[in-house]
């Protein structure tokens, strides 16, 4: 088990390496640069800045420079926020982003899984229709629509919660719900499908014919088995949530790092963009390892050696 884990974690390194090379090449092949402004910077100033930041070097030299700094934990200067390094930008925001992501994840699991179970147990009856409708709406509603609806209804009309900011628990409610909306629907649909699959298995019939009570059959036999495929998607969902959301963080003015996925592309803030990509790549790769380990606990048939 330990050696398996070590092997899996070491495999993350070539994954990150590949991701970094592809991103680096794509990023630099897009026209434009970090000094583009509607009011153009004097050419001399642009040239000077390029020289200062090493952007006048051939791209492979730039990559080697970047990679050399990266392995030492130095993410480089931000091109857009010139008084700050990428390290401080990420350090300032990552805590908030992870907190929001974890809260949204917990909410998504606590709501999504029961919703799926209820739907499956009431298959083709009103609980199923209700739950399925909720998840279809959840899948189909983009988060920015949900966020604006929440702000208009609970912020502007009812004034129960502030429309934006991040200064205390009352500020957490709307963004958490808005961020959890899509994963709730996703988890509910997976859980329902998985539960329906399990319901038809022989061991469920066996359990029922043994005279076990319904509750015991559902909890001990159905849910536990049905959750295996669900856990598979929980990994990526968790990685997605804790690395932040551009839309939610922008709309609610949350001081996290999620917004930089988009803004760093728009402003050609190369070092920040690399940092964010590496962060996301690491989160996804790492969560896949975690999910594989979790399988071993949920499904006794899976053993790693």
């Amino acid at each position: 088990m330990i050696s398996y884990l070590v092997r899996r974690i070491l495999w993350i390194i070539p994954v990150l390496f590949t991701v970094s090379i592809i991103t680096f090449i794509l990023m630099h092949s897009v026209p434009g640069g970090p000094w583009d402004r509607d009011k153009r910077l004097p050419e001399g100033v642009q040239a000077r800045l390029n020289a200062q930041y090493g952007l006048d070097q051939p791209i492979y030299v730039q990559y080697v420079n970047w990679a050399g700094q990266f392995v030492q934990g130095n993410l480089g200067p931000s091109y857009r926020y010139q008084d700050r390094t990428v390290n401080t930008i990420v350090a300032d925001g990552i805590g908030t982003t992870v907190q929001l992501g974890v809260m949204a994840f917990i909410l998504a699991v606590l709501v999504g899984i029961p919703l799926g179970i209820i739907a499956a147990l009431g298959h083709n009856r009103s609980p199923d229709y209700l739950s399925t409708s909720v998840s279809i709406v959840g899948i189909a509603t983009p988060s920015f629509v949900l966020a604006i609806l929440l702000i208009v209804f609970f912020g502007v009309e009812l004034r129960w919660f502030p429309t934006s900011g991040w200064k205390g628990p009352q500020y957490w409610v709307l963004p958490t719900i808005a961020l959890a909306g899509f994963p709730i629907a996703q988890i509910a649909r997976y859980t329902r499908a998985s539960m329906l699959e399990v319901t038809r298995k022989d061991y469920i019939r066996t359990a029922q014919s043994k005279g076990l009570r319904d509750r015991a059959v559902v909890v001990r036999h159905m849910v536990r088995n049905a959750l295996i495929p669900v856990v598979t998607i929980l990994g990526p969902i968790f990685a997605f949530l804790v690395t932040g959301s551009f839309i939610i963080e922008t709309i609610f003015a949350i001081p996290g790092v999620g917004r930089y996925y988009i803004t760093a592309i728009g402003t050609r803030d190369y070092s920040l963009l690399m940092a964010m990509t590496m962060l996301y790549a690491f989160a996804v790769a790492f969560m896949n390892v975690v999910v594989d380990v979790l399988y071993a606990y949920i499904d006794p048939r899976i053993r790693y050696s």
Partner: protein
Amino acid sequence: MQKRLFGILATVAIVVAACGGATTSSAPAASTEPGASAPAESAPAPSESNLAADQILNVTAQGEPPTLDPNKAQDSNSITILRGLVRGLVYFDKDLKIVPGLASSWDISPDAKTLTFHLRDAKYSNGDPIVAGDFVYSFKRLIDPRTAAPYSYVTAEIDGAPDLLAMAGADPAPSDATIQAAIDKLGVSAPDDKTLVIKLNTPASYFLTALTLWVFVPIEKKWIESPNATEAGNFVSSGPFVLDSWTHNSELTLKPNPNWWGDVKPTLTALNFFLRSDPESDQAAFEAGELDITQTPSPDIQRVVADPVLGPQVLQIPQFSITQYDFNNFEDPKLKSFKTPGPTANKDFRIALTQAIDKQAFIDATYAGVGQVANSFVMPGIPGYQPDLNPYPFDLASAKDHMTKALAALGKSSAADFGKLKFGFNTGAGHEPRVAFLAEAWRQAFGLETEQIGSDFSVFLTQRTAGQYDIARDGWGADYPHANNQLNGLFTCHGGNNDSQYCNPDFDALIAQAAAEPDQDKQVALYNQAQTLMIDDAAILPLRFLTQTYEVAPYVSGVLATGSDSVSPGELFWESIQIMKH
């Protein structure tokens, strides 16, 4: 036009009246209101007792400021905040006339090339005296190519500055010793702590106006070179407020500067900036009472103006800003892609395109009717504005005549023969309906087809600069209200912001002559000649002078809005704003 302008002024007056005027005994500047018209002055003057106990103002900066280093700042998000934090030698009054700032007086030499400033006694927020040497340090730092300051170009009139500006892009890069030698020769000096002398290389009378910019403020060397100098608690302020806290990407708070030397002391105890870049969320926050002042997003303007509650809170202020579309004049020989100039190189073709556009209909359809039709470039309110300059008004018959001439000259039988013209714009900024309006007008008038190319901002700018489009969206906001800033560099041959690839040596000669003219009336006449030449050439398609739509909560008073506001109305005078009882 007259009517529209009057309507705007009336709106201002009404809003000011609704704000209950703004005069208090403690704030002399507040007695001079924008559009200080009869209704505003006859409104009951609030006294101290009308002030709310809570003097906290919540506004938006529309995004995280990229930097608060005064020499390096260039984005509106930074400028709106810096206007509370720093002040220079001279400043504006609410009518944008030049008034003393840290310089209590100044002398201009007979040849208008030497400016001598006499400083007042003043201290920074940290208690250190503000001395002339800090201006010398700041100006040299601004020009120093190693600083790579985006606004370094505004120093070009200082004696010795052009050499330094040229060094910025020199290849190979000049040595530190070379740079230092040039800096030492720069025409900025401090004979004593209270006197600053600036020598210019040309009698540039507009240079005083440029000195109001946030880049020309005093900077203490020991402060700006200290680590994290621009973070909260470290920022050394020369303005009415200090930087109290800065939660990056979320909120930034200013508090009154105890050492503030100005006459108008802030009544506000805190000035909070929301650092969010989503205008719709700002609008929602305003409606929820969390913001006291906001900009109304274009799609909301009609609803807000018609709203019984929000409508009276609307404040519409003409800006020193213009929306124009560039025709590619294909006259910049540096750009190699012009082996075969497109039809927009033909003057009759450009005139035809100009006369085919009903500008008022364009504004009504795509800007909710907000803004003023532009037929020239220098904005209303800036000396050099030419209200009567309109050689090519909307006239379809004349447009078709010019198109016929253009077709004959270019050897085509119909406009469709040109194929699709490349029409570039940046996406995600609401330009789509505007581009569509223009493209459709040209299609209907001439059967001219365009390929509307929407790109990400950086890609769009790169392509526009390289002259890759026949027609491209553009806009310009005045750095300072002077015709030089509107014409020089934008329409001079190979100018830094010349995106219409226009080049007319006569125009360049007039601009150079105007810059050197010390007499203001003669100077304006020269700028007018230059602008007339450029507009007669139909170098660009001017469309709209911007009017910004804001909402100001009724209990906010002392908002001295000007056309130079970048994000919030009255931001030039944050210290004048007060919260009334509500």
